């Protein structure tokens, strides 16, 4: 480090440098069956418990890296950053919540979009980062999603979105609600252009995200056991004052009630989606 760099406050010095995830330990516990799992192996298994097949949450980058071909990959909309237009303040300032989330995740906001290939087929893929304020949808998420749609139209490439979100971002108030209209309107354009869109709902996909971009797939897919719904189970329980049915709002429940086309294991996601998209785009079998 040069003498000049040493003079800079640490905040400036570390900017732009990607923080490495320091492993806390080598072992972790399955959140469903409590089996003790070797972290490296779990990661290799795409965060799916090898003992009980429970699908744990997976980060947006890891998701996209495991889904797309390694090369080529170009990120879309990375330059967009959230602003606190309303000077929103609850028990904490929104501004502080943003910077906290940015530090914790090393992301600027809760949606990552990549242009790339799926088994050599050009695609655009988006994934929600649930660790960024619960994957909540604010203006940046909405805009990045729209840019994903625009890129798909431009390249005549199918769009895939992996959602994991608690819903709209309250701190952006009505701006966040309007992202539901914005993302849905963009998808309506995509549909006009007859470009396929596969929505993959992962745990959890709720509220404003569920009631907009997530439910509008030409094909709606979910991972096993994901919580998917409009209202949260607690709100429903408080409203209806009766016990919720077994498995309520889980993927299997939604499949049974006709909201989904299929449930796909994360480890088969690449193969299954590539097959579906090849048929929808009338490509020959791989």
């Amino acid at each position, binding site marked *: 480090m040069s003498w000049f760099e040493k003079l800079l406050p640490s905040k400036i010095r570390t900017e732009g440098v990607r923080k490495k995830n320091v492993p806390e330990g080598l072992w972790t516990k399955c959140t469903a069956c409590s089996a003790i799992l070797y972290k490296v192996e779990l990661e290799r298994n795409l965060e799916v418990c090898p003992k009980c097949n429970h699908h744990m949450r997976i980060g947006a980058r890891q998701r996209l890296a495991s889904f797309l071909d390694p090369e080529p990959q170009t990120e879309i909309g*990375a*330059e*967009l*950053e*959230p*602003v606190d*237009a*309303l000077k*929103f*303040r*609850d*028990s904490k300032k929104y501004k502080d919540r943003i910077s906290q989330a940015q530090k914790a995740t090393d992301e600027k906001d809760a949606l990552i979009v990549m242009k790339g290939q799926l088994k050599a087929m050009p695609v655009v893929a988006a994934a929600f980062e649930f660790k960024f304020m619960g994957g909540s949808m604010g*203006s*940046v998420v*909405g*805009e990045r999603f*729209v840019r994903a749609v625009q890129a798909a139209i431009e390249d005549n490439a199918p769009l895939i979105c992996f959602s994991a979100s608690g819903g*709209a971002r*309250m701190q*952006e*108030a*009505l*701006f*966040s*609600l*309007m992202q*539901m*209209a*914005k993302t*849905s*309107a963009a*998808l*309506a*354009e995509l*549909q*006009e252009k007859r470009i396929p869109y596969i929505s993959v709902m992962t745990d959890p996909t709720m*509220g*404003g995200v*569920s*009631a*907009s*971009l*997530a*439910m*509008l797939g030409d094909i709606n897919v979910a991972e096993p056991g994901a919580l*998917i*719904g*409009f*209202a949260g189970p607690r*709100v*429903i329980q408080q*409203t*209806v004052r*009766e016990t919720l*049915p077994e498995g*309520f*709002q889980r993927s299997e429940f939604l499949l049974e*009630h*006709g*909201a989904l086309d299929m449930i796909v294991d994360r480890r088969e996601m690449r193969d299954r989606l590539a097959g579906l998209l090849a048929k929808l785009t009338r490509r020959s079998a791989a």
Partner: protein
Amino acid sequence: MKLNYLDFEQPIAELEEKIEELRHVGSDAEINISEEIARLEGKSRSLTESIFSSLNAWQIAQMARHPLRPYSLDYLERCFTEFDELHGDRVYSDDPAIVGGLARLDGQPVVVIGQQKGRDTKEKIRRNFGMPRPEGYRKARRLMEMAERFQLPLITLIDTPGAYPGIGAEERGQSEAIARNLAVMSQLRTPIICTVIGEGGSGGALAIGVGDRVMMLSYSTYSVISPEGCASILWKSAEKAKDAAEALGITSKRLFELGLVDKVIDEPLGGAHRDPDAMAGNLRQALCAALDELRGLSTPELLRQRQEKIMAFGQFTSRAK
């Protein structure tokens, strides 16, 4: 007329009570007290003016939910003629929390869709407190598509605490029903004018709220979450609803300043319920003016402008890398 005064209207209520008493005395006493009554009435009016000139967001939320506030059917009766209500989603049932059908506005045929609350207990339950289920949104979609097919302008009246959070609603795809409407409205090949007449409760409101013009009555609210809901999540206490209402900026004035709403429609002094006819007059005028503006546009131009409007929603920065 009993006006169900809200807390912050108590000084007005007391004054009005005094006037009422005087009137009572006046009718059987010899002394002429009409001058005194006129003086007090003047005082009541200026008191109302002063109280209503500085309502905070939480007080406006109370106004938007006022038990006497005019609902969709009240406006259908007053702003429109020849309303034929149409029922059912053709799939599952008819949802009384959303009313809709054909009507005339200033003689011109239109399709109207509105969320409907109930006035008395029985009606409130029948209307599910204005909280639509998926079948309500699907009925709305059917009517939207009909409006497009027959080239009729679509007018929506928004007044809901939110989409119903129930077991059946989830089973029948509440999310899909809302999402589909958003997509359909964005591409509907006919003019759409949306007006928030009371509560604009989140996705449940937006599901009939995507259009070429979005207007709000001055004491209506529009929000991503109810102030109570927001307070209990972010402040961990529903008591903080007043702070949440302020922070969320749910009022017509604030949302107009932010560019999220195109027009604010004035309410009569003391709110829409004090003079529903005058309110309906203002609403009709605003609807006609908006329709006139849109009628001149070709369909591709209408759709282009709508898409541009929707795509402009959001505030963020773009940092060159």
